C-alpha cells in the first residue's frame, strides 16, 4: 500500500503533464501573431501607456520571444525554467491589466496579438485577470511536479 505523500506526488506528476501542454499551447498561440505582426503589437502596447515610447518596439518583440522560449521550454526537460519564465510573464501581464483597469484605460487587450486595427472585440476586462490567475495556477502545478524525468 502506497503512502499518502507518495500518492500525492504521483497525482501531481500526472497533473503536471497536461498543465504543461495547456500552458505551452496558450503561449504558443499568443506568441505567434505577435511575432508575425510586431508593429501591430507595438501599437497595442503603446495604448496601455505604461512604457516609454522609445521602448515600445523593444518590448513588442522581446515579450513574444520570451513567450515562445518559455512555451518551448515547457515541452522540454527545461520545463521548470519555462514555468518560472511564463509565471513571471503572467505576473507582469496581470499587473499591467490590473493597473489599466484601475486607471480606466479602455484599450484592446492585445493578449493574442493586435487583431484588426481599431478592434474593440477584446478590450481589457476583469475576465482577463481571472484567466491569468488560472494560467498562473497551471505554472505553479508544473513547478510543484517532480524534478525527475517526465511522467505522462
Amino acid at each position, binding site marked *: 500500500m502506497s503512502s499518502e505523500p507518495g500518492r500525492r506526488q504521483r497525482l501531481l506528476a500526472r497533473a503536471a503533464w497536461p498543465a504543461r501542454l495547456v500552458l505551452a499551447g496558450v503561449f504558443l498561440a499568443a506568441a505567434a501573431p505577435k511575432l508575425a505582426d510586431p508593429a501591430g503589437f507595438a501599437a497595442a502596447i503603446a495604448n496601455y501607456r505604461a512604457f516609454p515610447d522609445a521602448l515600445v518596439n523593444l518590448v513588442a518583440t522581446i515579450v513574444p520571444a520570451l513567450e515562445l522560449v518559455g512555451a518551448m521550454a515547457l515541452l522540454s526537460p527545461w520545463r521548470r525554467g*519555462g514555468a518560472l519564465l511564463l509565471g*513571471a510573464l503572467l505576473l507582469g501581464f496581470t499587473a499591467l491589466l490590473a493597473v489599466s483597469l484601475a486607471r480606466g484605460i479602455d484599450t484592446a487587450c492585445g493578449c493574442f496579438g493586435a487583431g484588426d486595427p481599431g478592434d474593440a472585440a477584446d478590450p481589457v476586462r476583469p475576465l482577463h485577470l481571472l484567466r491569468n490567475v488560472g494560467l498562473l495556477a497551471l505554472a505553479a502545478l508544473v513547478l510543484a511536479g517532480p524534478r525527475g524525468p517526465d511522467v505522462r
Partner: protein
Amino acid sequence: MTRHDLRELAALTALGLVLGVAHLALRPGLPLLAAPAAQCSADEAGPPMLMESEPLASEPPASMIDGGAP
C-alpha cells in the same frame, strides 16, 4: 525553487532577450528605439491648415441656401 531552476530561468530569459532584439533588428520598419509618438514641434508642424475653401460637412450647399432647388 532551486539554484538549478534559477539558472534555467536566467538562460531562457537571456535566449528570449537575444531572440527579441534580433527579431527587432531584422525588421527594417521598426526602429530599435522608437521616437516618441507625440513629438511634434511647432516648427515641424508648419502653419495651421485652414480649410476655408471647403464648406463644413454640416453646412448646407450654397444652392440650397440661395434658392432651394438646384
